[in-house]
């Protein structure tokens, strides 16, 4: 029985000690952070002034960097300054940072530490475009944290060591990467530079997320040559690809896409209908108002709403369709349709 008593007391004490220990550690960490950040404004102003002096006169400033926090602040300031500097001033800044061995530190930091610190270091490495940096970034791309991985990829591309378009599309297959605005931006950039390659890649085997990103990127190019391949993509078996193709046709901005988009409003998948409605509104294709009308009774509210919004963008023809619908549809659609019509008139 004494054993049981001892056990209960030990459990109680361990629970209390563990709780206070954890919170105590967190409070100490907070205090340290607060103390470190207390003089940040003065420190920043000093670093900024020194870096400006370097840019203007070429004189090497004396920079007091005695701990990791100061290094972080200097790195942030140097990065901000680097965005404003060009040519020889920027080269002098980078040379100074290299002399301070900050490039090595950034490389080390890019591979370990907290996510926030790693992201800061990876972004700073953009100032040091060399093979060593590229290698570090390649290693960082394998990080489990998607933010770290994609930040490393972006910097690798920016420094000229990045993968080609198909390499970028492969990355889209990683969990969560397909929704990344970073990857989308990189692929859009590549597609804008080389549309024929982007169109060629539509015919190779891609992950669903990769195909979606590629279709969107092709739409953003605004090139007429993309019209045909996007039309073909509207018949792709993957509904996400069809939805992306419909959205891309809207982004492309050619009214020739109208009949295909009208056909896409009949698609069995709501995402395709939604994107088709949006695209019709974006094109301002008033002759397709009739194709949007059935979507006002779509079972998915978002499709209904986008259809109403699209009709609202089609001018008088769309508004009169909305007014007609307000008198005929069931309650929910009627209220929304009337609202949009009223809003658009106001």
């Amino acid at each position, binding site marked *: 029985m004494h054993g049981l008593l001892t056990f209960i007391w030990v459990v*109680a004490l361990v629970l209390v000690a563990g*709780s*206070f220990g954890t*919170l105590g550690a*967190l*409070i100490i960490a907070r205090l340290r952070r607060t103390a470190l950040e207390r003089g940040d404004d003065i420190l920043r102003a000093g670093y900024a002034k020194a870096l400006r002096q370097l840019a203007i006169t070429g004189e090497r400033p004396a920079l007091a960097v005695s701990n990791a926090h100061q290094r972080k602040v200097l790195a942030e300031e140097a990065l901000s300054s680097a965005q404003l500097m060009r040519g020889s001033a920027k080269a002098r800044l980078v040379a100074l940072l290299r002399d301070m061995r900050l490039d090595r530190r950034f490389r080390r930091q890019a591979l370990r530490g907290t996510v926030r610190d790693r992201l800061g270091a990876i972004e700073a490495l953009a100032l040091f475009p060399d093979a060593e940096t590229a290698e570090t970034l390649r290693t960082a791309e394998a990080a489990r944290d998607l933010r770290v991985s994609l930040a490393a990829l972006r910097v690798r591309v920016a420094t000229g060591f990045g993968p080609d378009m198909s390499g970028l599309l492969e990355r889209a297959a990683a969990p969560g990467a397909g929704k990344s605005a970073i990857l989308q931006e990189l692929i859009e950039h590549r597609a804008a530079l080389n549309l024929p390659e982007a169109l060629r890649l539509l015919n190779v085997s891609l992950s669903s997320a990769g195909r979606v990103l590629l279709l969107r990127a092709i739409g953003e190019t605004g090139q007429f040559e993309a019209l045909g391949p996007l039309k073909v993509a509207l018949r792709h078996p993957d509904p996400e690809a069809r939805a992306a193709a419909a959205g891309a046709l809207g982004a492309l901005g050619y009214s020739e896409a109208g009949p295909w988009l009208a056909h896409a409003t009949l698609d069995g998948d709501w995402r395709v209908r939604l994107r088709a409605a949006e695209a019709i509104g974006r094109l301002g294709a008033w002759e397709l108002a009739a194709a949007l009308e059935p979507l006002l009774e779509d079972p998915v509210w978002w499709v209904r709403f986008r259809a109403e919004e699209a009709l609202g963008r089609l001018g008088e023809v769309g508004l009169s369709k909305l007014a007609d619908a307000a008198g005929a549809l069931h*309650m929910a659609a009627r*209220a929304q349709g009337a609202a949009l019509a009223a809003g658009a008139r106001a």
Partner: protein
Amino acid sequence: MIAGLLPQAVYLATHWLAAIIIAIGLLQNCVYILQLAIAQRALAQEPPERHMRNLWRRSATSAPPIALLAPAYNEALTIENSTQSLLGLDYPVFEVIVINDGSKDNTLEVLKSAFALEPLDRDYEQTIPHQPIRGLYRSAKDARLIVIDKQNGGKADALNAGISLARAPIVCSMDADSILEPDALLRAVQPFVEDPENVVASGGTVRIANGCLIENGQVREIGVSHNFLALMQTVEYLRAFLLARLAWSKIGALTIVSGAFGLFRRSMLVEIGGYALKTVGEDMELVVRLHRIFRERGKPYRIAFVPEPVCWTEAPETLEVLARQRARWQRGALETFSKHRVMLFNPRYGRVGFLAFGQILLFDVIGPVVELFGYVLMPLMWMLGVLSVDYLLAFLAVTFALGVAVSVGSLAVEEAELRRFPKASHLFLLTLAAVAENFGYRQLNSLWRLRGLWQWMRGEQAWGDMHRRGFQTRKRVQVFAR
């Protein structure tokens, strides 16, 4: 020894009773610890986006329009600031519908003069029940502001009127005197953007505004109140309104989206008849009804909880008001439990029937009774000589240790993952509160909940007066007194 004089049956019965009480207490604490672990994991895996600009870039184009429903009853002192603050939210498309629920003060007049209200002609069909609407206005200064003037009917009734008039696909129910952070809507709408087919409701975190610096209806500086009760509630809200709800939403069994801040798909609310009118726990009842209807229809659905959109609310600072509030919450939970009792442990309702209703049974129905029994029975057994002082002390130690561990653990998760309290001194103060709440505050809470149980058994329906100090000026406001 008295024990020797007790019949064997009584002796055994008291021991069994004590064992049941201890088991239920341990079970409750195990649930708390499990919730903490699930919430911590969820926050670590999906840390909230810190920068508003990133959120805006990613979501603004696909964010659906929202109608903010703000019911107001005798809010003349604060309604101008509250409304101004709502109109200042960062969200692409939204309208603010203030519902003047038959205020006896000059709430409507204040709105009319502050926002240059003009009569509005807007078609609507009363498909859900609410008191008659006396007038409808739109602001000439800001077309996004609509004011409904209606006969008094209570908060649920006012929200129903707002739902009838709203035209956005998503409605946001809130209290007129709550403060939403500027990015709260954009954050809370994320589940609707990511999963528009299945998400029917989404709740955000409610935090205590007492102790914060508030200017022009915005929280300018987060602080911690030095009022003992408000401090206790700050810890309590972290544990129960942030981490517990996050954990329940992660396992698909969230039964409450706070009335102070919740987003709902309007068409669903119309379909299920809006808020129930004859209950004091209309927010919980609505969510449970959503679960029930979707489960009965066999339709996929999701009720989400997003930890970062924050709504700030004023907590009661007097025992009298707090006692009334807690008793009312207890009544609300019991009314919902009773109304939908068919769901309890019914396989048809899945996790909601087993886990969520099991939790209501454990925490709200039998919890307060058992806890009080425990506090009375243990010393009594010791006095009767059937419980040794060593065991009594050990039992009390482990009970309080678990309580402290859960509260301090909640604070630790907050600090590690969200870090909303700006100063280390806040954490220190809250740590003291997390310990102190186990010595008196929790026991008082149990008493208040017992009072709620008693009121529910007697069929009481009153909301009771809420004396609030107000964010801007000291004031006294009656909230939906009926």
